């Protein structure tokens, strides 16, 4: 789930509009009789969601059951907490858990504030054409395939690549960055920032256009300078957006970009780059321990869900903004 997707959920719940037709009283029988064409339009999407979203959710039950290739997708026999026990006592698991937390934390610290700063900077630009061009350019990376982004990273960081040329121009030595564990996290976060910063501004820019001009007027009359206007009018105006996105970012904390890591890491950088999802991919799908990997995946999903819930609860109590 991206930043943009997140805000959506928040926006949905809060803006009641007049219904096309008055809400109709009566039971399900009446509703079905009246609105059967609408319900029938919902059948195909509901079947889709049942098969491709809810069945896999139930399929997580194999975390507690022994799974045999070719057998039932829900496994064959109960084994209780065997697999959970296994990963809790697996040092390799805690290693990737730590990596995930560090990469997730770094991504949050860098990629959450950057779009806010960029949106505030764009908001100060008066030349409309200049602003449009900057926006167009900064949205572009969002539309690239992760394979292309990683391809660019490989070329920029190769021994003959631009980054090493710059390093050498300043008297440094060429470094094969992608084989150095100490560089992995930095490369991941930098490429993530490059790809998401522009797109992330869209929601903030939308929130900024909704800030009441009279507030700026009033603050000017009160003698506020530009910085004070930004601090006391602009920032409070986008605070609900910031909080919403922060909640969702916290919830996504452990879902470090699986595909990007998978493309970017190699055995030499496993020590810093291997994350929960790549580990369970190797254990589960490459080495075929499906139940064990499912147990890890379920653990990750539950933590993510719990984190969204608690971040949402805390923000509701502290700042009065919540997703639902």
């Amino acid at each position: 789930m991206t930043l943009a997707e997140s805000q959506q959920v928040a926006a949905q719940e809060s803006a009641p509009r007049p219904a096309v037709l008055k809400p109709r009283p009566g039971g399900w029988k009446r509703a079905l009789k009246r609105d059967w064409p609408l319900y029938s339009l919902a059948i195909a999407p509901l079947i889709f969601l049942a098969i491709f979203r809810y069945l896999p959710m139930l399929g997580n039950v194999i975390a507690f059951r022994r799974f045999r290739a070719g057998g039932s997708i829900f496994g064959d026999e109960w084994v209780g907490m065997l697999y959970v026990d296994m990963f809790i006592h697996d040092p390799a698991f805690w290693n990737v858990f730590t990596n995930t937390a560090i990469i997730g934390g770094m991504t949050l610290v860098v990629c959450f504030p950057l779009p806010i700063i960029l949106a505030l900077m764009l908001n100060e630009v008066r030349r409309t054409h200049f602003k449009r061009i900057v926006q167009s350019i900064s949205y572009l990376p969002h539309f690239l395939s992760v394979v292309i982004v990683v391809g660019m990273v490989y070329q920029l960081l190769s021994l003959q690549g631009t980054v090493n040329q710059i390093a050498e121009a300043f008297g440094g030595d060429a470094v094969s960055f992608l084989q150095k564990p100490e560089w992995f996290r930095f490369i991941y976060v930098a490429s993530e920032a490059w790809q998401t910063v522009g797109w992330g501004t869209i929601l903030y820019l939308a929130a900024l256009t909704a800030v009441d001009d009279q507030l700026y007027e009033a603050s000017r009359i009160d003698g506020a300078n530009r910085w004070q206007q930004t601090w006391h009018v602009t920032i409070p105006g986008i605070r609900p957006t910031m909080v919403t996105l922060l909640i969702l970012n916290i919830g996504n904390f452990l879902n470090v970009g699986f595909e990007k890591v998978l493309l970017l890491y190699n055995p030499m950088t496993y020590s810093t780059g291997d994350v929960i999802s790549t580990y369970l991919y190797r254990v589960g799908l490459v080495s075929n321990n499906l139940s064990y990997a499912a147990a890890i995946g379920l653990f990750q999903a539950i933590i993510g869900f719990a984190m969204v819930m608690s971040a949402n609860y805390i923000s509701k109590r502290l700042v009065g903004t919540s997703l639902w």
Partner: protein
Amino acid sequence: MAPDAPRPAPVTARTSRIKDSTSYKVFTVVNMTVLVLMCALMLYPFIMLLAQSFSSAGAINAGKVNLFPVDFNLDTYKAVANNSNFWRTYGNTVVYTLIGTTIAMVLTTTYAYVLSKKHLKGRGLLIGIAVFTMFFNGGIVPNYVLISSLGMKNTMWAVILPPALSVFNLLVMKAFFENLPNELEEAAHIDGLSWFGIFFRIVMPLSKAVIATMVLFYSVQYWNDWFAAFLYLDRTDLFPVTLFLRNLIAGASTAASEGAAASGSTVSDINANIQSVTMILILIPILCVYPFVQRYFVSGIMLGSVKG
């Protein structure tokens, strides 16, 4: 805010000041300089790819190619154009994108329309069923098991069906439908037009902008996808072009790691020019469509996020 009467941006409102302080002028210059530098950083990788695609492998490996091509030639383009693997995977990507986007649009449009009807009994439940999947998903392993047991491995359906409904797109579309003027639909209803009739003859024609946005989002998603193919397809004749590129990069980087491990030297840029050409050919359709749909997607996203 009515969709047809956009409010002036605060930028214009704030220009009404007669005179700026010197510190603000300094700020403006610094601000714009930083933005220009950021744009340069955003564009540089694209320029580098373009330069490499027209350069010789020798010049790239000597580290001479940055902003401009060295030893300008079209040989790499010719080599890639003559590669039947490339064109087959490219064709697969086109097919997956067309079929996938069509299915996704049908599912998304119909469900969003249903969800936009406030009077519908059970609407909250129908929304909840979709939104819950944003916060909790099955995970890689159960999905893999499911796709395998449905017999979809090594068929294009493994790539096309699982991503065919994005809840985010669904919610954007639902918000759009809710914003359509009620009166038209009410009038049509009173005139005896069925729900299907209203949907196809009133709602669809009014929703061209949001449909264009969603078509863009879904086609970019299918165009860029490599992971589903990586996971579920073993037959190279079914690969999409992103997987072709991934294998090109992986091949080069494996050779580089082995080379580095063995002798301290490297061959990391073997086929850097071929990679660049492949990337550019994958990028071209996106770059061509992008300028035309940009204004739609920005307003489409904003629509869902700005209240009333």
